[in-house]
């Protein structure tokens, strides 16, 4: 763990904003780490490590803020749960980072683990947009509405670039590939409709 005390060069954030950012990262970093090992993507693994570093910085910022805010023992007691949540989030991101690092060191996921990961309640799927995919030219929210499928877009890969958490108004292009988290049923529909064509 890093305890960087130097200025990160950004505007000071409030405790609230730091916590919101940490929570948002913690929600997606685990899915991203699983995506990296499931689809053997070093790019996604590197994005995971970036987010892990970001959470380290946020945790330091939060510690400083919280220490400065406490004037009495009573204050300090009230502020403790905030620190413990932030530390928990940091632990989640560390575990996600360890999973991603494994891939970067050249280890692959055992086929049986891969198989099992396709059977969980909410699955992560990759949809490749070949030239005849009906998804081409549509935005993520259009696809969601038209197919009546709710999904969380995790990563969009376009021409060697990896976009984490693409916006719902992003238009899809030919040869993109998309990684989303959805229900088993949703995954089936998305792959069937969007992944057609060669």
């Amino acid at each position: 763990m890093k305890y960087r005390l130097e200025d990160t060069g950004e505007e000071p954030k409030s405790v609230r904003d730091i916590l919101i950012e940490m929570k948002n990262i913690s929600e997606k970093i685990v899915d991203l780490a699983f995506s990296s090992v499931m689809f053997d993507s070093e790019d996604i693994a590197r994005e995971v490590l970036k987010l892990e570093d970001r959470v380290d910085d946020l945790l330091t910022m939060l510690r400083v803020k919280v220490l400065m805010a406490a004037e009495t023992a009573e204050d300090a007691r009230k502020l403790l749960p905030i620190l413990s949540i932030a530390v928990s989030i940091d632990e989640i991101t560390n575990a996600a980072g360890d999973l991603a690092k494994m891939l970067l060191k050249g280890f692959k996921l055992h086929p049986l683990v891969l198989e099992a990961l396709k059977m969980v309640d909410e699955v992560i799927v990759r949809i490749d947009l070949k030239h005849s995919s009906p998804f081409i030219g549509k935005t993520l929210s259009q696809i969601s509405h038209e197919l009546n499928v709710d999904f969380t877009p995790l990563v969009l890969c376009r021409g060697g670039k990896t976009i984490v958490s693409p916006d719902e108004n992003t238009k899809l292009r030919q040869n993109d590939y998309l990684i989303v988290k959805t229900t088993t049923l949703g995954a089936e529909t998305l792959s069937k409709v969007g992944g057609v064509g060669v």
Partner: protein
Amino acid sequence: MFKERISKVMNMIIELKNISEFMVDLAYTALLYNSVELSEEVERLEEYVDDLHINYELNILSLAQFEEDAGKYLGALRVGLVAESLADAALSMVKPILNGVEPHEVLRIAINESEETILKLKVDEESEIRDKSLEELRLQETVGVRIVAIRRNSKWILNPSSDTRIQADDVLFAIGSLKDLEEFRKMLGSK
């Protein structure tokens, strides 16, 4: 024997991943409503995940000894560790509630303002969704929300299955974006 062990391990991965992800949602819900009951559920599940995880690791280690390349199983162990740390994190989040400390207001705000949030809704007598099963409702597909828990009388149904039927007076804990939750609230016609 080997085959049996493999299918056992696969089921463990599925269970570890489902429960640990659910626990984090549950912990945030507990913080949002300062709920001792939900916190106790998190605590109970954490003990369960601990046991499951130890058992899982032992099984992986036994499988790995038949393998030339043990590195193949490293990933399996790390997947387990992600689940374990999610479960631990969920528990430390609700520890203050279990110790009688009310969560600081800023936490509630942060949970409410993040991308996904949790809404608590009561089902009334005239509600459209009454007596329907979660499978029939397909909430995730139609409105984009997921029911993570139901409180019925004084009992909890955690991570309800698709054949669970909604009853009048049920208290639903739904997770989703603010926009989707608002739509869901309208659909229920509840306050």
